[in-house]
């Protein structure tokens, strides 16, 4: 019989600090230090960690050990496209000519960077089936806001700015869409989904009019379904003089197969961290470039990246531009990775999407008889199941299923979204998973359904094999402890007044 090994508490970096420890070394100099005027000078040193390098490395290594990434295992978060992040990306992004290049370098000293951006723009325009691209937005949400600002600028330019004040959003839309509509100063109108999973055309025919600026839509939708009446949707909006905006979150399903521009969309944003392999980084960074039809090109953010013969440059002469949504030309390091990734596929991006759709349909086929399927169609790159049958029969919810999947060493799918499906499980395998992984995941989902019937507590009390059990979110919201409270731990480094710190240095 083995004795249980006592669990070591995991410490915050501040709890490992000791006064005087330090990992940094900096070049010394003996130059006089000019004094900062006393009313502007720092009075108390910030309580930054004080550790030497070895323990700092162990600390962050330990944090990485307690984090699950795509590198660790299957990560089927719906609409996030958690595909493999190629390692060649990391090599090229750290080339000194990219990594150590200042964004305000003269253009003749940045031709390689400008050419890369221009080439990426051309690629993205071709993939979208549209005419002009800005790489500036830092993420999909910022791309959405940019797209709505472009809409506003376009209509103002035509004298319809005050008239068109409303944007339509699907009820299955990602929360960013309505949030962006508000931030752009538009009014929101919702359109529902019919029994096939397509937009409700009746509602659109009734309510789209001369006050409408546009529609924001993802296609395929967050249900993983391609809107079969997309041409009619486009006709309705264009017929009223409005524009169509494509949320590119689900582009992984249709690259090289159907282009948003050909579907009738006028503005498209990409998520470089979804479709084009920028690593998600624990929450970011991303990239949200926007492609537009020619009529919207004058309004794109400045500067534009243009080609003049064999030179590349920034063009600031855009009098109708909406302005600037992000500093400099955008998140350049993200462009490098996406560009390298796309050069790896070329026109065979189509195979990437085909594999994504095949993988999703395979997992769907294996699970559809055990879980509830709200829309009985072939899916695209993702699909939505409902655990409502498990809830009804055994009191086991989508949340419980997600927590139990962790014990099987899978990251759970997205849960409780889209909102129109109760007990939703939104599963996007991506194309980079081999069949064996898909089978292992499907086997686990089937096992959990059996456990729900036969060993309910195992599921209700899951996870059992992670560093923590289920956490108390209510307490977190009520007490809102959002930083380390040094004041409650006086024995640790207390942010000495700077005078004392200087004296201590002299004595060392």
């Amino acid at each position, binding site marked *: 019989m083995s004795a249980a090994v006592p669990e070591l508490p995991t410490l915050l970096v501040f709890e490992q600090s000791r006064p005087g420890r330090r990992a940094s070394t900096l070049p010394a100099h003996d130059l006089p230090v000019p004094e900062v005027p006393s009313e502007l000078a720092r009075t108390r040193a910030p309580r930054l960690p004080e550790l030497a390098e070895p323990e700092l490395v162990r600390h962050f290594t330990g944090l990485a050990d307690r984090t699950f990434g795509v590198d660790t295992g299957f990560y089927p978060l719906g609409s996030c496209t958690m595909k493999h992040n190629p390692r060649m990306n990391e090599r090229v992004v750290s080339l000194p000519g990219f990594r150590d290049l200042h964004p305000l370098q003269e253009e003749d000293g940045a031709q390689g960077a400008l050419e890369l951006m221009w080439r990426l723009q051309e690629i993205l325009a071709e993939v979208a089936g549209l005419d002009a691209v800005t790489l500036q937005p830092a993420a999909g949400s910022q791309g959405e806001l940019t797209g709505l600002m472009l809409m506003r600028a376009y209509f103002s330019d035509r004298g319809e700015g005050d008239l068109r004040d409303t944007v339509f959003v699907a009820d299955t839309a990602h929360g960013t869409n309505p949030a962006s509509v508000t931030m752009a100063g538009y009014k929101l109108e919702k359109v529902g989904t019919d029994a096939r999973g397509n937009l409700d055309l009746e509602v659109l025919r009734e309510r789209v009019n001369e006050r409408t600026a546009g529609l924001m839509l993802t296609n395929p939708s967050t249900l993983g379904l391609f809107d079969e009446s997309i041409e009619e949707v486009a006709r309705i909006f264009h017929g009223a003089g409005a524009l169509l905006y494509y949320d590119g979150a689900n582009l992984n399903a249709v690259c090289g197969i159907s282009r948003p521009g050909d579907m009738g969309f006028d503005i498209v944003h990409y998520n470089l961290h979804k479709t084009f392999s920028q690593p998600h980084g624990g929450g970011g960074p991303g990239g949200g470039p926007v492609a537009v039809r020619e009529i919207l090109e004058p309004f794109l953010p400045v500067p534009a990246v243009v080609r003049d013969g064999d030179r590349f440059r920034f063009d600031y002469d855009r009098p109708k531009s909406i302005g600037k949504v992000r500093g400099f030309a955008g998140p350049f390091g993200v462009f490098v990775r996406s560009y390298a990734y796309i050069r790896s596929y070329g026109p065979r991006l189509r195979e990437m999407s085909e594999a994504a759709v095949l993988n999703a349909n395979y997992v769907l086929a294996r699970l559809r008889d055990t879980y509830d399927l709200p829309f009985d169609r072939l899916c695209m790159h993702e699909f939505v199941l409902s655990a409502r049958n498990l809830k009804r029969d055994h009191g086991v919810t989508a949340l419980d299923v997600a927590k139990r999947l962790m014990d099987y060493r899978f990251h759970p799918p997205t849960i409780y979204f889209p909102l129109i499906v109760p007990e939703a499980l939104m599963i996007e395998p991506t194309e980079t998973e081999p069949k064996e992984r898909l089978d292992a995941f499907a086997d686990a989902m089937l096992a959990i359904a059996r456990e729900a019937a036969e060993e309910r507590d195992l599921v209700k009390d899951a996870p059992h094999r992670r560093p923590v059990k289920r956490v108390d*979110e*209510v307490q*977190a*919201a*009520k007490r809102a402890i959002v930083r380390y409270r040094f004041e409650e731990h006086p024995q640790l480094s207390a942010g000495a007044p700077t005078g004392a710190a200087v004296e201590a240095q002299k004595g060392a």
Partner: protein
Amino acid sequence: MAADESYPDDLKYHAEHDWARIDGDTATLGITWYAQDALGEIVHLEAPEDGSSVAAGESYGEVESVKAVSDLIAPLSGEIIEVNAALADAPETINEDPYDAGWLIKIRLTDPAEVAGLLDVDAYRKLLDEQ
């Protein structure tokens, strides 16, 4: 711990899942069992100030759980004479006792005729059945 489902007879109800206890020209307002159940454990109340006014059908504050935020819709118009201060530190009281200790605000009615437009308990229960 949340209360058992109940809808007292002596209260008036509103379709947005609020209740009102009328007492002469004042009323005490709160949210029903159905509302607190839908939210889950309440972690924060964004309350209005004493002396401010509320209009029937309009929002006068918010209640928040970890997964949702709900506007508090006033069933009646009036001037706020008291806010339940105990809820600032213990908002979960609304779940435990939505009709007594979990009351939200007391108002002096500015249009008592509005009371006639509220639902009695049977009408409210019927509305819930149709949800």
